[in-house]
């Protein structure tokens, strides 16, 4: 029952994280920043806007994207197979990419393309992290993974690799090419408005939950360590966001492959020997 409760609350939780991040980022830039509940104000406002649609399929795919992400997060809370969860997440993103491509808008299409590139950049690393968990815990199931501990000492490089790709997932500098506000005005989300944009907006909350739950897993059975890791990572990602510019999409893939994949690979080979 509590699991169901948390699944229902997942967007709210993610919204709080997002709101907190906006406040934190503002503070790092010495601004006052928006209130903590700002994401929810935005959500309620978007519900009340007149909605403009390019075509039905485009709009509905955004909704499907959100729902699939929600299922993914739900599967995480239920402690299901991590590999399946990563692929389900891939599915959600592909739905978004198809949506982005399905309109004749240049920015949307470039955004969708960058989304695909980002997918290429982080997906192997994410899967390697999953494999790392498997090698250590002997199971892909989150429930089993959480019974062991000491991941951090066994897979430090995998954790670093996860840190490298984390900004891609939460759309933060230096890897926020997908959003690329100054270049492509938000990319995939550019043609969404009102009611349907809300789903994309909330999907972002779920992405936070998704990627930070990976960080949490590194704590293993020690939940406190996991929570500490999440908070530390959260602050670190925002610090890096405040200290770097956006790199190009090609550079992102290069960095991700040359650095994150290499780190992950070394760690896995090291675990094998």
């Amino acid at each position, binding site marked *: 029952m509590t699991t169901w409760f948390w699944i229902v609350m997942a967007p709210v939780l993610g919204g709080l994280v997002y709101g907190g991040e906006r406040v934190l980022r503002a503070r790092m830039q010495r601004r006052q920043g928006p209130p903590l509940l700002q994401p929810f104000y935005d959500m309620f406002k978007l519900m009340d*806007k007149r909605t403009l649609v390019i075509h039905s399929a485009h709009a509905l795919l955004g909704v499907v994207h959100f729902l699939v992400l929600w299922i993914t997060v739900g599967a995480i809370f239920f402690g299901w197979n991590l590999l399946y969860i990563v692929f389900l997440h891939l599915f959600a993103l592909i739905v978004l990419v198809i949506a982005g491509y399905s309109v004749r808008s240049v920015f949307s299409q470039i955004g969708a393309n960058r989304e695909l590139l980002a997918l290429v950049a982080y997906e192997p690393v994410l899967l390697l992290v999953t494999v790392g968990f498997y090698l250590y815990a002997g199971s892909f199931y989150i429930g089993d993974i959480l019974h062991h501990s000491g991941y951090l000492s066994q897979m430090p490089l995998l954790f670093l690799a996860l840190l490298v790709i984390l900004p891609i997932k939460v759309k933060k500098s230096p890897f926020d090419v997908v959003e690329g506000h100054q270049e492509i005005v938000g990319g995939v989300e550019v*043609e969404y408005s009102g009611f349907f944009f809300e789903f994309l907006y909330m999907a972002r909350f779920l992405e936070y939950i998704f990627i930070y739950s990976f960080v949490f897993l590194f704590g293993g059975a020690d939940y406190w360590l996991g929570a500490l890791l999440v908070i530390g990572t959260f602050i670190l990602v925002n610090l890096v966001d405040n200290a770097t510019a956006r790199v190009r999409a090609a550079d992102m893939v290069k960095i991700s492959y040359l650095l994150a994949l290499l780190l992950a690979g070394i760690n896995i080979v090291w675990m094998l020997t």
Partner: protein
Amino acid sequence: MKWLAQFRKKSPWILHYNAGSCNGCDIEILAALSPRFDLERFGIVNTGNPKQTDIFLVTGPVTFHSRERLVELYSQIPEPKVVVAVGACTSTGGVFRGMYNVEDGIDRYIPVDVYVPGCAASPQLIIDGIVQALSILEKKNKAIEKPFRLFGGIKRIGKKISRLTMAKRIGEEK
């Protein structure tokens, strides 16, 4: 949904368009986003995308070149929307009034809700204007608002409302 209307003023997202101003007001809008004035504390995000916009900040008397774009952007903003004319030349034409390539103020083309004075309008004035715009935003309903000129009409095709031709080209005006 009366209850939801109160959130409009807590999260106004802005779109900024320069319809031929001298840059003065534009850099002041930028300054208003900077840490000193920090518009984000009102929940304001500079989306740069008309489809997710609530407040349309326009600067500049409308030059002939930018008329179509102004109306096009306006017609792409979903209702409820508020137009804020920032600066003297946007409100009334200012010093450019009567010059051959400008229209005197943007209210020749689109309905303006708030006129912000000043040349250039300082960030304080812009904030004042936005605060006034917020109270207007809260009261608006969701009926379609039309531009005054270059309005091509709204078609109903089947049950769908088509805004595809809402903004027209100059040549097609008749």
